[in-house]
């Protein structure tokens, strides 16, 4: 191989007496981090492609509902449209998916209901990740009495049934805005991330590179955020992505029970449609389909990310 010879000669010339120590150059390859490897895996995964396309569409609907329908989801025309059946041929038009009992376009309601679900899903996930992550980090890093107290607190919250707890809290609010729902869900939902984070921190804390940083005299925040955090993110991201779907379905459940958001949301529509299921299945059917697709998209994304980040897969 001509290139091997050349490299050898170059090494011998460049390093002189240290030639024996000089290593042959590995062929140049792109600098890759673990995230880079994971990204390479993800691009090849059809689950990731399907779920991310769906999520992009959902985000577009959330931010620009006007692009998809020009109809106001709250204005109904009882005389004209009461319980009119879907006209599945008219894709995108207000009567595509039919009308509900108040003469409102089901299509418009499905489109505008997306915002509520996505907002609650993302809002809760962010809140839960920050709170749970912080609690888990502090408990795992400091250990001892701090860990004992925080872990028992986590256990107490973990013991409260998630939906029951949120229902009790939401029941005491008259005006249930998005923030209130996010707050209630987060209040009972942070424990899982805290547990995952604590476990990951305890494992990472024992790694030699953390000892090496301590031996250099690195400060606690430096060790926490520069050495431990980047190495504990992977499991947290996986759990967060999957639970995003769970929070969306929780919001729908709460709305169905009449304890969710005031306003347009899939859960409210599914609840309303339930009363009409014998005469107008479509009122319930289409929000349900959207809900299932959305939850599935996030859970699939979480699975794809987990596979890409799991070191055992490589």
């Amino acid at each position: 191989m001509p290139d091997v010879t050349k490299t050898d000669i170059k090494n011998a010339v460049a390093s002189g007496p240290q030639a024996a120590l000089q290593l042959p150059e590995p062929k140049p390859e792109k600098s890759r981090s673990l995230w880079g490897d994971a990204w390479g895996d993800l691009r090849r995964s059809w689950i990731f492609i399907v779920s991310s396309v769906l999520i992009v569409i959902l985000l577009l609907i959330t931010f620009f509902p006007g692009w998809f329908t020009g109809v106001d989801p709250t204005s109904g025309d009882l005389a004209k449209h009461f319980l009119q059946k879907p006209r599945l041929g008219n894709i995108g038009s207000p009567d595509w998916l039919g009308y509900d009992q108040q003469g409102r376009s089901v299509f418009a309601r499905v489109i505008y209901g997306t915002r509520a679900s996505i907002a609650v899903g993302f809002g809760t996930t962010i809140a839960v990740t920050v709170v749970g992550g912080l609690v888990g980090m502090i408990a795992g890093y400091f250990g001892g009495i701090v860990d004992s107290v925080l872990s028992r607190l986590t256990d107490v919250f973990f013991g409260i049934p998630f939906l029951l707890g949120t229902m009790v809290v939401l029941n005491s609010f008259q005006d249930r805005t998005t923030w209130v729902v996010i707050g209630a869900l987060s209040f009972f939902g942070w424990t899982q991330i805290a547990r995952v984070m604590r476990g990951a921190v305890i494992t990472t804390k024992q790694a030699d590179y953390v000892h090496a940083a301590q031996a250099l005299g690195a400060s606690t925040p430096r060790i926490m955020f520069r050495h431990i955090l980047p190495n504990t993110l992977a499991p947290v991201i996986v759990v967060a992505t999957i639970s995003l779907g769970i929070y969306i379905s929780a919001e729908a459940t709460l709305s169905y029970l009449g304890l969710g958001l005031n306003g347009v949301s899939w859960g409210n529509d599914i609840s309303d449609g339930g009363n009409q299921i014998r005469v107008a299945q479509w009122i319930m059917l289409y929000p349900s389909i959207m809900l299932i697709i959305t939850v599935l998209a996030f859970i699939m994304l979480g699975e794809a990310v987990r596979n890409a980040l799991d070191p055992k897969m490589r």
Partner: protein
Amino acid sequence: MTTIEEVVPVPSPRDGGTDGTPLLEVRDLHVEFHTREGVVKAVNGVNYSVNAGETLAVLGESGSGKSVTAQAIMGILDMPPAKIPQGEIRFRGQDMLTMSGEDRRKIRGQRIAMIFQDALSSLNPVLSVGYQLGEMFRVHQGLSKKEAKAKAIELMDRVKIPAAAARVNDYPHQFSGGMRQRIMIAMALALEPDLIIADEPTTALDVTVQAQVMDLLAELQREYNMGLILITHDLGVVADVADKIAVMYAGRIVERAPVHELYKRPAHPYTRGLLDSIPRLDQKGQELYAIKGLPPNLLRVPSGCAFNPRCPKAQDVCRTQVPDLLPVTEQDGTELVGRASACHFWKETIHG
């Protein structure tokens, strides 16, 4: 109590089968792994054989293919990603790669057994040691629970676990590392196999315990007249127990020799380099001899002889032509029994 053992007799290789065919013969075995980055050629045409009562040491570094070959023999490679595109693994003359799954299982379960490096993860943590040992007898010989337990105690006695009858119901984590490795050996011995493959059996153990376990293994091998394939990277362990050695590098056997011969006169620069880099008393204060460079990346094995970028003797021919594993002779041409080297310049290496 501690024993001070005087001279240890060397086990002499005993007669193979009745008809002279070796107990196990690996012929031109190839194993590749299909990964995202490409095809990793882990084993590239390995040949070796072992007879009853004989110890073959397969010596190599990580990535040399020594463990993959053993896994192929045991049929525990994950396929895919692994693939065996070529080769034969003959047990008493029968090729295990072409026989029916049923026959293969019979051989692998009863005639060939394997001992792993990490005894703790090879034992089921939720079942008692006695149950796991007895399982072999219940499944393969249809013994009752009671008989199986009695057999398990007998086996534990055999591998010198103190108070076997009292400890038979203990769980793996209640035993120390050395004791767990003894249990693994007992398990491998349970069905009195003809061949044992030991993959780094003592690497995870402390030196003083290592000696106990290796001694036990050698003793049992003599007693049962078993073949033993010892896979290791430790030149010291090899010298202690092996009859013959196969040195592997980048998926090939680069040198084969009886144990005394190999240490006295290595015929491959890689073997020579390994032996030279052991610190010796007279080298104190000097630089150690070091093989330069790094073990090869199996995705990009160098052309020609895989060792050529690290070899002090490399010439142009080494970069273009793969050397075959050829017999090694004395200077006057008399054959050296059991010796072979895959080096274009073996003559210079052994005689120079």
